């Protein structure tokens, strides 16, 4: 690939974050290229979550810079990141179990009806949002969920994950961040979620995947960012390195 097309869409440079005397991030860098799945791995306390939270606006870094599409970012809350086109699927999924699929997908960004019904009576466009929610699921090949009006609590773990990913995909125009998406899932459901990640990439959306599961990471990632002691210590690929190489770098048993 030429240098032109290899311009990163999202970069972080020298991000630092302290919590009291604990240094969570110690000048960490990150690059995400268009159309790739970038996995982030690292031991507990390596700063993976802190790094991701900076990118998703959940915490504010003490120092360092972030750029999206060449523009400086300064997020003060998650909504800022979302407005910039960065969607995050949290490990807890952040779906409301008693609400239906469509309501969850549009939660916090309900669309109103046009005309006086919307402007005066504040009526939301339920039918339109259901149609679009259905389409969002169809596009990810999960339109087989029979009924967009069924509550999320009636879904399996994998299906809930699918709803959360569909929500991110429906609104994430630039970057999608997935935090441990397969941690709570069985083998088959994990397979479905990994397929979703490939589908997102095939649609041109770059994905950042945080995972502890090495086989999953090596199955789906294009590049693997290894975080250690608050810094990026190496970037490897599944072609050039084995899982044990990656684990060795991650734990400090081998140099990058």
């Amino acid at each position: 690939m030429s240098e032109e097309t290899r311009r990163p869409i999202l970069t972080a440079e020298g991000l630092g974050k302290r919590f009291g005397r604990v240094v969570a991030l110690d000048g960490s860098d990150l690059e995400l290229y268009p159309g790739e799945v970038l996995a982030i791995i690292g031991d507990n306390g390596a700063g993976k979550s802190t790094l991701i939270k900076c990118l998703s606006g959940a915490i504010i870094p003490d120092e360092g810079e972030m750029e999206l599409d060449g523009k400086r970012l300064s997020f003060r809350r998650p909504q800022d990141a979302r407005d910039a086109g960065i969607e995050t699927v949290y490990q807890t999924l952040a779906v409301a179990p008693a609400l239906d699929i469509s309501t969850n997908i549009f939660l916090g960004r309900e669309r109103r009806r046009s005309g006086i019904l919307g402007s005066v009576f504040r009526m939301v466009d339920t039918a339109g949002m259901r149609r679009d929610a259905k389409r969002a699921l169809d596009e990810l090949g999960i339109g087989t969920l029979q009924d967009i009006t069924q509550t999320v609590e009636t879904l399996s773990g994998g299906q809930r994950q699918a709803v959360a990913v569909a929500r991110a995909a429906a609104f994430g125009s630039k970057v999608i961040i997935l935090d441990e998406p397969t941690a709570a899932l069985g083998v088959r459901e994990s397979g479905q979620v990994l397929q979703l990640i490939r589908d997102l990439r095939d649609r041109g959306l770059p994905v950042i995947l945080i995972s502890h599961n090495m086989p999953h990471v090596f199955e789906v990632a294009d590049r693997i960012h290894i975080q250690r002691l608050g810094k990026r210590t190496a970037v490897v690929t599944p072609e050039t390195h084995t899982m044990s190489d990656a684990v060795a770098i991650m734990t400090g048993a081998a140099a990058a």
Partner: protein
Amino acid sequence: MDTSPPTEDALVTLGSQDRSLLDHIQHALHRYPVISPAVVLLVSGIVFAFLSDGRFQRPETLGIILQQTAVLATLAVGQTLIILTAGIDLAVGTGMLLTHLVIAKVAVDQGVPPILALLIGALVGLALGAFHGYIVTRVKLPPFIVTLGTFYIFNSLGLVYSKAQTVSKEALGGEGSLLLWTGKSFHIGSMRLTVGVLIAVSLYVAVAYVLSNTSWGRHVYATGDDPEAARLAGINVNLVLMSVYMVAGLIYALGGWVQLGRSLSASANAATDVNLETITAVVIGGTSLFGGRGRVWGTLVGALIVTVFRIGLNLAGVNVYYQNFAIGSLILVAVALDQWIRRVGK
């Protein structure tokens, strides 16, 4: 690189597994929580019609049921909103009494015009609600504790403010006064209704619309269902809670006005049952105390059930002391049913 794409069986088979009849019932109740209270209301209506030798289903009795339910039903709307956010309002009765005393006293003692007195009452109700909202969202005390405290405080303020004296119908301006307009009656056939009944019904129509058709309504449900998920979805959870308590406070004033028309007087010792009965109506109506699920129409049915039990048992000649036994049993059944319904999909 695509190693055997995962099958989508798990996604396809949803809903097609064999279900027993009980499962079907469980799912239907889960989906339409108003069904169970509606069935209870219907069955109890039929039973009481037989037990009372036909006196129960007379239009006159229906009119009395509706009139007697108006104050409870009005206040139970605010209770429903609060319980939907997984909160509770133990002070709804004393809050209403305090506001209705304010309305009566500023009109009578200060000579404020009735319309202005009602407006002042509305502002006081809003302030009481805002106080609840502030303590719940900023000081982070549980709603149970907050409203347990204000239950006593509002009660005390009402007694002090009114010197425990009743403001009479004459002092309030008699039949024609706007303050007592909610007690004005009219007939539909031989059924006598009051303006207060119409106000209560209108409130239900309005709040039901808002809950199911506006963003705010959806945010109320999401906040009660999973506040963290709601926050991450970009909802200002504290703002939602604050607004819910303020709306509930505004409803104190509306309920206070309906109460003025019902009792044709104002007293700090009126309507002592209404406090807990709002919770009873909400719970029997199928709204979950854990928040996030329920319908305001269920509450209306629940409020009607409370009155139907009282009047029906009375007409059936059952010892009056058994009324609370029946209502208490119904609460236990309703909550047990809610627990069972919530297990769907688990």
